[in-house]
């Protein structure tokens, strides 16, 4: 056996081994990730609807239609606006909760477990539960408000266009604030105590301490948490599906709900593919942009 061939064989073996290890994962992701994506792009250039099954190249017709589709842009706006409102609230409440539980306290584990619970239950169950809670007649929310306001109230949470988003917001914040809370609690526990004490001795104000010590320490973690949640919020579907179904009208229609309607109610398959592609494209661009920004900042 010549030496160089045995060296080569060893390298081949290692290469084979490392590719063998990723092979199943790559196969599954290619099958369920890439194939549908390619199919999606193809479909968006064809003309497949409920009644037609035309697989010939159809040009950019469906993409052109995107621009004039008010319902699409509205649903996109809903999605973005809701994310922009819900996320800061979740962060703020999560931060306050983290502060509350930062120092040791009796029964801390139990409290944390209870607060954790909403995050691990199904969004479908969360949505159903809040639909019950917000029932203007049989639900407790109006009763509690009535008690606090000292008179009967008739708030139509899942109907009134001005209340329906707040209702969804409550459900969403209820379910996902614990997530922020846990992450921030972990991040805050890792803030250097000595630095904080030094700042105290130096007479730094609370705000200054926060900006100069706490924020830089939790920023990387916070960024990832925000990214995760933002992506989750962007695909918001289940809670809205059970609470309002996108209604009243299309007022609570998110991009996911709209895309579902187009694909699985109207069977406007080619058009819904165009929508899907637009969403994937926009999200990818956004995430790459965000990651770049952070890399630069680091």
């Amino acid at each position, binding site marked *: 056996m010549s030496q160089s061939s045995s060296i080569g064989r060893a390298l081949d073996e290692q290469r084979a081994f490392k590719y063998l*290890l990723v092979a199943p994962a790559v196969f*599954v992701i290619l099958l369920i990730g890439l194939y549908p994506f390619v199919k999606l792009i193809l479909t968006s250039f064809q003309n497949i609807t409920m009644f037609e099954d035309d697989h010939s190249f159809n040009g950019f017709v469906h993409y052109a239609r995107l621009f004039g589709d008010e319902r699409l842009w509205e649903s996109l706006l809903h999605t973005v606006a809701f994310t922009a409102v819900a996320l800061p609230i979740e962060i703020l409440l999560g931060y306050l*909760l983290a502060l509350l539980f930062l120092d040791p306290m009796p029964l801390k584990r139990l409290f944390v477990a*209870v607060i954790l619970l909403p995050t691990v*239950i199904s969004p479908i169950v969360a949505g159903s539960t809040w639909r*019950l809670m917000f029932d203007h007649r049989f639900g*407790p929310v109006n*009763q509690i408000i009535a008690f606090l306001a000292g008179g009967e109230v008739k708030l139509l949470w899942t109907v009134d266009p001005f209340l329906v988003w707040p209702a969804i917001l409550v459900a969403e914040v209820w379910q996902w604030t614990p997530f922020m809370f846990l992450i921030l609690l972990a991040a805050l526990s890792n803030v250097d105590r000595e630095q904080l004490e030094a700042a105290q001795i130096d007479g730094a104000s609370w705000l200054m301490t926060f900006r100069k010590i706490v924020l830089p320490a939790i920023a990387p973690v916070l960024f990832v948490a925000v990214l995760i949640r933002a992506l989750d919020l962007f695909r918001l*579907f289940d809670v809205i599906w059970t609470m309002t179904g996108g209604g009243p009208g299309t007022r609570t229609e998110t991009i996911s709900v709209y895309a*579902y309607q187009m694909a699985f109610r109207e069977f406007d398959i080619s058009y819904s593919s165009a929508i899907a592609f637009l969403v994937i494209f926009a999200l990818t661009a956004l995430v790459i942009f965000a990651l770049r920004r952070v890399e630069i900042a680091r």
Partner: protein
Amino acid sequence: MTRGAKGWRLAARLACALAVATLFLFPIYWLAAISIKTPEEIFAYPPVWIPSGFRLDGYVTLFRDGDAWAVWNSLVTAGISTVLAMVIGFIAAYSIVRYRTGGDHLAIWIISQRMIPPICVAFPIFLLFVSLRIVDTYTGLVMLYTAFNLPYVIWMMRGFIQEIPLELEQSALVDGLSRWAVLWKVVLPMSRAGFFATAVFTFIFAWNDFLFALILTRSDVITYPVQVTGYFGSQSTFWSKIGAMSMLGVLPMIFVVGTMQRFIVRGFSMGAVKG
């Protein structure tokens, strides 16, 4: 600070904690209450805050009519897909970390898969499943959940495996283990806490999925979230069934939180810290 002031501070924090916990728990209490209320209590106005008795009719109905199979289906699909995703994801993550397989590109490509909103690829996946003849089968759902959890598993396990000192693996290699054996006898035990935390989350994701279960099941393997939405009928809404079925889905989660809180906390915070 005096001792008294400290005591007051703690008392105030405890009071706050209690209030917050109540706030977060109440909706789940309400759900549980509905599942054991009588029809009159469900549709009472003003609402009944505490059920008069512990009426299990809702649950009994679910088991008698076979609706409870949905929970079993959830268990099977979530359970098997978790095992698969963990095994496949673990070895892939190991390869990516230790051999830098695919450089940064592979890792980024894999994690980017998680970014795509499921609804965007739902239809093509449906068509794919049709051609594979796995719509409404365990195989189909298991495969799907495995695929959708893989990026998460790989991402998390990547972080945990990176923490393992290389020398430990090398030592095992010299000691006589094959590369494959090193994976199971050294890397796995070294990352077991992270592994377990990741598995818990993978299970939760699959357990709670709605959209794919809605699209890819018909009757045989309907999961519990789909079953819940089925109770919103056109001329009948079965609140007590909704309550009971939801609770069947929530109870395992309560169990999970109760027994594995440590791992969940770890899973949550690691996901972000590692990122």
